[in-house]
């Protein structure tokens, strides 16, 4: 395996980590005003991700940095091409981050309610837009001979990409509701679990629609059995998560995490060895070879990544262990 392939895999892994971890963060964020009936409940919901959301978001920064370092042309084409979409992601992430830290720092109900809704929208925007981006990556986008995206903003909002966007939102909501069910007790836990059950069917329907359209319009199932296996496994995991939500909530959450991982892996596998497919001319597509850094940089970055990623995983895992205890509305809340 060459280093380009290794880095493609590493980027895939980083996006898996990002979508699984920020997936429930975004889900929980969207649920704050929808599920929390009073101030204390909303604070419990926020505190369920309080100690970890910031660390989880670094997975996005690392994925971005890794693409920049290993595949600069991919980074340049993607970020300048999906310009306004990424601007909206940034706006969402900014108000969300500030909201999570600021909402409990003032007691006025109007202040808190405003931030709760900003947290909700700030979580919805990136979930939706990252889904739309993934949809467009699968479809391919107009890229010219200078590796420049020439499609504009509205081009990104095509039916398939919107289906993927909605699926991402629903899947993250489900994933977040299951997470919340695991982290809370009492009435809130019950409500989280029944919300998850309610979200399950719409998510399955959206996912089926996604797979059907993907079959006709994208390379998701192309190139042998692997695509079918990944998509099939993702579907099974998703269906099973709903069936187990009440009896085995821990397993159900693991299954939505698995669904997210399988979807991410299936997407990247379908693209490989391309990273961005050009609909104008296949020759203009960005691949792991024509978009990559020099072999020397890839080598340096491989050493760095293989040394540091395990350490990061270890201490992030330890954090989850420290905060493993369930939260209740009567427990002492920081802030």
């Amino acid at each position, binding site marked *: 395996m060459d280093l380009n392939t290794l880095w493609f895999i590493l980027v895939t892994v980083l996006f898996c980590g990002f979508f699984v971890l920020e997936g429930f963060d975004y889900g929980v964020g969207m649920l704050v005003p929808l599920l929390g009936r009073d101030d204390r409940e909303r604070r419990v919901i926020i505190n369920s991700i309080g100690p970890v959301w910031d660390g989880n978001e670094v997975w996005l920064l690392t994925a971005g940095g890794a693409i920049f370092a290993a595949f600069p042309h991919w*980074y*340049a084409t993607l970020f300048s091409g999906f310009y306004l979409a990424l601007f909206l992601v940034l706006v969402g992430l900014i108000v969300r*981050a*500030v909201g999570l830290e600021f909402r409990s*720092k003032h007691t006025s109900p109007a202040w808190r309610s405003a931030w709760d809704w900003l947290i909700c929208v700030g979580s919805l925007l990136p979930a939706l837009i990252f889904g739309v981006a993934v949809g467009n990556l699968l479809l391919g986008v107009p890229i010219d001979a200078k590796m420049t995206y020439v499609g504009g903003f509205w081009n990104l909002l095509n039916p398939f990409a919107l289906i993927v966007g909605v699926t991402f939102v629903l899947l993250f909501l489900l994933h977040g509701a299951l997470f919340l069910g695991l982290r809370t007790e009492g009435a809130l836990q019950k409500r989280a679990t029944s919300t998850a059950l309610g979200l399950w069917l719409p998510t399955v329907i959206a996912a089926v629609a996604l797979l059907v359209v993907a079959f006709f319009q994208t390379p998701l199932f192309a190139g042998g059995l692997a695509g079918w296996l990944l998509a099939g496994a993702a579907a099974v995991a998703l269906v099973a998560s709903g069936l187990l939500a009440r009896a085995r909530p821990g397993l159900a959450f693991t299954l939505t995490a698995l669904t997210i991982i399988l979807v991410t892996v299936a997407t990247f596998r379908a693209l490989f060895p391309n990273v961005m497919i050009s609909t104008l001319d296949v020759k203009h597509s960005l691949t792991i070879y024509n978009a990559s850094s020099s072999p020397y940089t890839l080598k340096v970055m491989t050493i760095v990544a293989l040394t540091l990623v395990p350490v990061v995983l270890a201490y992030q895992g330890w954090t989850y262990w420290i905060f493993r205890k369930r939260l209740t509305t009567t427990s002492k*809340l920081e802030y």
Partner: protein
Amino acid sequence: MDTLELARWQFGITTVYHFFFVPLTLGLSILVALMETAYVRTGNEVYKKMAKYWGKLFLINFAMGVATGIVQEFQFGMNWSEYSRFVGDIFGAPLAVEALLAFFIESTFLGLWIFGWDKLSKKLHLTTIWLVALGSNLSALWIIIANAWMQHPVGYVLRNGRAEMQDFFALLTNPQLPYEISHVFFGGVVTAAFFVLGISAWQLLRQKEFADFFQRSFRWGAVTALLGSVLVMLVGHGQGQWLERSNPMKLAAAEANWKTKDRCEFLIAAGIDEKNQKNTWSLPVGSLLSILAYNSPSGVVKGMTDLQAEYTQKYGPGDYIPPVTATFWSFRLMVASGLAMLALALLALWRSRNLIAPRWLLGLLVAGLALPYIGNSTGWMLAELGRQPWLVFGLMKTSAGVSLATTAGEVLFTVIGFTALYGALMVVDVWLLRKYAAQGPVEAAD
């Protein structure tokens, strides 16, 4: 305005804004860690109160830094795609390392610190804040490694139409790096010091409650302010001397010095006529610039018109003179704020032995809160404007780095969007900081 100009405005606005929050994070993380160390060592509750009180203000500031930091990583690709293609091989690496090595430590252990007061042992909890301080300052180190390369490219080879990395170690031993990182680091220390001093002075002015607490904080701030302001100026002096060797054009622009001369004077102020390449009037101090550049009154300091001729020969026809007026006055504002901070630090330390410093001094120190922010912002304006027209010195001009995929309308839209959002958040941030600063060292109610 075209895409290039708008993209430059966006970078300027978002970066200066982001850097309102960064230096305080760098310095205050260390001060809070020291306060908690004092608590763990002595068991004295007042230090715990200090760590918690200043820690709360630290967190409000930190949230803004994190939120605006994501924009920084994204906008290289969004607005500067051609730059990203050209330098990705080198510039992307430190950014990725920054995320992997620094951001993870910083954010993970900050979560533990905030929520871990009752869950971790005292020593373990103390370790988490030291790791936050380490992570924050490591992140500064890696982004400065990237910036130092733009100021003074090393360890690369031009191949396939881009700068490719040839020696990672050369990036880490870039002679530009020690000056730049230590200047930023001590800038952070001095920012935290004046933040603590200013707020303590404000509290001592407005009430007798918590007088003990804020006098103690005042002393911590005063000592740190003196250390920080002396060191930031010393390394800044070193950086100036290095500049005369590495990028004399920037130094010449910072001094509005058009002609190469020996025993060069330093201009306290000047009227600059950029078009005709001369100064209409000036307030000179004889030989001082030569002294600053070489520690000796004799020493040839290069001027802009001669450097322009030299660069035209080296890099081909073009205008190689930075925006002189902005560079010149940025430098003066930075130095003036540094000198004012040194004076205030001396006064504060001198009077911190008294039970209560005189009201005029307390008032000055409240106003002094603005000084590090002026110094930090103008310092970066000097560094970045003074490098123009280059994006990467000698290798790529700013005009060649801008994205091709974006239209002027799109960039204008995001400039307006970010500016409006940032403006609104600044109001909220300052209001919250004031509220928590005013509250004093009490446990916040629900």
